């Protein structure tokens, strides 16, 4: 940690240039790679910090007395990874020992990997051009959450969890505050030298109720939008104010009647819809999937390349953007892990599929001459590849409210929060649960129902979208752990949207 602290410095340190010590270490890899015959090389030196403070309140064995168990964890990971292109083939190697000697050695290892692999090359790597940048960027935040005392964090969570557990009919309450800090330095043989720091904050509360006689267990989550933001985000989550609501809703959910399955209209709130956007649009518009690079693991995509620019994906209300520049987005950074300046670009315009998410070594494969800045590796020890930007649904026309959407529904379900999610390897057939469900009958939101899932095909579903609320209701939920790649990597990504309505979707009763 000491070297990491020294070279990454204070996160609020203001300078427009990277720390000279990082530049010096990075230069070792670039010089060694050139010496070994690499036509391109880059190095990422990274420090990743993860802090969890939380509480679990649950009954002791054989009694109703509550056991209150705290958790406090701080983890750091620090190291570097070097990528090279030799004989037209990528090579990669990584180590946690950040010294000039080890950087030179590991660079040679990356060259060995590339040379060995060149024997089984499908086609030489071609990189889309990018400018060289020398810059330092820090994600916007007001207060560094790592500087806030754990005492204060535990108090906040304990107070909210206790409010949930106040009703003895509630079985358990959980809460946590998770903070993530990502320091990264990138340097390439093309002249870029970029230092970035990104902070993410994610609060969460959950209540569980059980009915032993009926053999039923229900959990209601209060998931606040995880944000690229500092401690200032936490008070805005209003954990204390929402705890009683979660308490009441989990008890209502426990006795809620099962849904009557069949075709119904759905009104999906942002806390739920973000995941449907993620799975059905975010992943289907990844170019590496469309080109077959994920065929063995995450899968391919029904959106094959001839569909770009002309395929009707959804109704003309559906406008989707890929964006690594929007405030608060978990995938927001200034430069991606190819050293490309990030951007906002249309993925779907008025229902028509327009653009894939791309990185430098893919752009030429679809006739494009620049990357859309979607390269990311989840650790210093991971190979950078194409990952999802924030993919968000544009809000609807002014003055459309969630009540307007509900009032147009005779027989439907309103869904809040994410639950079970599963989608096939080409992103056609999906089935989603949720966290809480309310019946809509005669244009009004009624009582809760239970055991709901809906199943559809991606394009059928998005063509069934006939209402999107206005920008006043737009929220940006997301997840820190989207999985893809071999070895599997995670990615943090946000999917902003406003409440939206979908007509005649197949609703299932789950066991």
């Amino acid at each position, binding site marked *: *940690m*000491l*070297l*990491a602290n020294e070279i990454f410095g204070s996160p609020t340190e203001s300078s427009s240039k990277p720390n000279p010590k990082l530049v010096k270490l990075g230069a070792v890899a670039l010089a060694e790679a050139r010496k070994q015959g690499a036509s391109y090389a880059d190095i990422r030196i990274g420090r990743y910090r993860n802090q969890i403070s*939380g509480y679990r309140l*649950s009954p*002791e*064995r054989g009694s109703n007395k509550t*056991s*209150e*168990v*705290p958790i*406090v*964890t*701080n*983890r*750091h*990971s*620090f190291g570097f*990874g070097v990528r090279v292109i030799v004989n037209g*083939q*990528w090579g*990669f*190697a990584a180590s*946690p020992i950040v010294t000039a000697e080890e950087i030179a050695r590991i660079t040679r290892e990356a060259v*060995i*990997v590339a040379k060995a692999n060149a024997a*089984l*090359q*499908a086609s030489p790597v071609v990189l889309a051009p990018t400018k060289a940048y020398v810059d330092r960027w820090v994600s916007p935040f007001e207060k560094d959450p790592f500087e806030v005392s*754990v005492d204060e964090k*535990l108090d906040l969570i*304990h107070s909210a969890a206790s409010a949930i557990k106040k009703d003895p009919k509630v079985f358990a309450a959980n809460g946590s505050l998770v903070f993530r800090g990502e320091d990264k330095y990138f340097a390439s043989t093309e002249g870029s030298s970029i230092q970035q720091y990104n902070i993410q904050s994610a609060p969460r509360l959950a209540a569980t109720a*059980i009915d*032993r*006689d009926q053999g039923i267990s229900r959990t209601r989550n209060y998931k606040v939008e995880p944000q690229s933001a500092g401690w200032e985000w936490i008070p805005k989550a209003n954990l204390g104010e929402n705890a009683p609501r979660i308490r009441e809703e989990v008890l209502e959910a426990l006795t809620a009647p099962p849904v009557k399955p069949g075709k119904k209209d759905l009104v999906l709130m942002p806390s739920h819809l973000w995941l449907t956007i993620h799975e059905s649009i975010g992943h289907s518009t990844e170019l590496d999937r469309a080109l*077959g*690079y*994920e*065929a*063995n*693991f995450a*899968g391919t995509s029904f959106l094959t390349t001839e569909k770009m620019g002309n395929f009707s994906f959804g109704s003309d209300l559906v406008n989707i953007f890929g964006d690594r520049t929007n405030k608060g987005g978990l995938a927001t950074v200034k430069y991606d892990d190819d050293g490309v300046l990030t951007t906002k670009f249309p993925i779907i315009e008025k229902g028509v599929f327009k653009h894939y998410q791309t990185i430098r070594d893919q752009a030429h494969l679809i006739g494009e001459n620049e990357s859309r800045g979607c390269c990311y590796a989840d650790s210093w*020890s991971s*190979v950078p590849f194409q990952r999802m930007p924030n993919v968000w649904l544009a809000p609807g026309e002014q003055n459309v409210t969630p009540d307007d959407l509900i009032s147009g529904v005779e027989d439907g379900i309103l869904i809040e929060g994410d639950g*079970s*999610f*599963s*989608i*096939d*390897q*080409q992103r*056609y*057939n999906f*089935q989603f649960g949720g966290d809480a469900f309310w019946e809509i009958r005669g244009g009004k939101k009624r009582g809760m129902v239970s055991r709901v899932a809906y*199943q559809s095909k991606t394009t059928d579903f998005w063509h069934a979208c006939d209402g999107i609320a206005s920008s006043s209701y737009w929220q940006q939920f997301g997840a820190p752990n989207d999985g893809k790649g*071999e070895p599997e990597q995670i990615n943090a990504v946000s999917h902003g949207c406003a409440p939206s309505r979908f007509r005649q979707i*197949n609703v299932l009763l*789950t*066991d």
Partner: protein
Amino acid sequence: MLSQQDAKNLIEKVLSYSKLPGCDVSVNSEESAFIRFANNGITTSGYVLEQSVSISSTTEDGRRGSSGANELTDESLKESVEEAERLAAISRPDPEIVPALGQQKYPELHNYDAFTGSARGDVMIPHVKAIIDCARKNQLISAGFIERSARAVAIGNKAGLFGYHTLTDSSLSNTMRNKGGTSSGWASQTSVSLKDIDGESAGRISSEKCLRGAGAKRKLDPGKYTVILEPSGASDLIGFLGFGFGARQAEQGQSFLSKQGGGTHLGDKLFPEFITLRTDPFNPKLPALPWTGGGGRGGFGGGGGGSLPTDKITWIENGVVKNLSYDRFWASKAGKQPTPGPADLVLDGQDHSLEDLIQSVDRGLLITRLWYIRFLQQRTLQLTGLTRDGVFLVENGKVTDPVTNFRWNESPVRVLQNAKRLTKSARALGSEGGSTIAPAMVVADFNLASVSDAV
């Protein structure tokens, strides 16, 4: 990788910096090499070294703080200890903390293979080449992944506990797709030793599936079918079943082993006579550790699942639920011996081949693997997922036409209850990361809930 003496020195150094009464340390040192390929060529690959130290400090009154870092200089280790102690000092007493474990006698496991531990591209590339050659010969497109890892792990604490172990693992999986994108096939292999990996046979199996699936697909209605799950799918489901054996969850009404109205199903015969599910860390095909958990005194709370010597445990014997898992805290409350949770799972097979299973089915579906498995209800272990990379109709004991993929909604509990016949067991690689010793199985009334057009 760290030697035993290096690991011991490192742990002793960390403990020497500790001022609080309790300090648990775990160390991981790992070297891995991997190659990824797609569109009949290598795409990305790498060689990665990793190391980390996790420290959990405990005060006299049971307050705990944890830190983790991977700079192993003296200064960094000292700072990590101080950080864990600072966090412990401002945390709150954990009512479920258990005393530190003293010296333990860990079993000797033999799952380190030196050949695997040093393998690089020259060993792995020929397997990739065999698959790509097979794809080209059959005018198919291959994608896949081969990796090997070698780890040294160690644990220790202030109460005299120390353990050290080295292990290796390896795997190969590959997907073959035809050029029209109308068919795909998949095969995988996994073993502690890379010598057991054979790219030629993995390529042959996946290409045969892809070629067999290339014809017009039968569109069957969703519904309940007799299915033959190949070992990969069985392995995934067994992995999910492992989540359900916690005594705490079962006693508190949150598990499939909770009885309606109270009590548990321990001792009940829930499954057919031929179902026996065990933890077996001594199986040399499994990358098991000689202790449970990651070291330390447990996860959320100090319940103490970790650092106990691992051992054989029978979860289901001849259909009867034989054990629940107890961490040290819950065991102390229940008056039971601590019993680690299900890991290193083996579902005993029967003396049948996959061909025998196919011949035993009048009408059913042969399923290559399962995909995107998620809980619908964790209490009941109700899951949803899809089939992938080869579904074939079986009629009168013979594989006939390729069939579209399906979404399924099922629970591993019902799957084992409805199991009719098993092959011999072997180590299998599930799609969701679970790897167990599992057989292929014939299962009646498997709920295929909707058709998936994906290939």
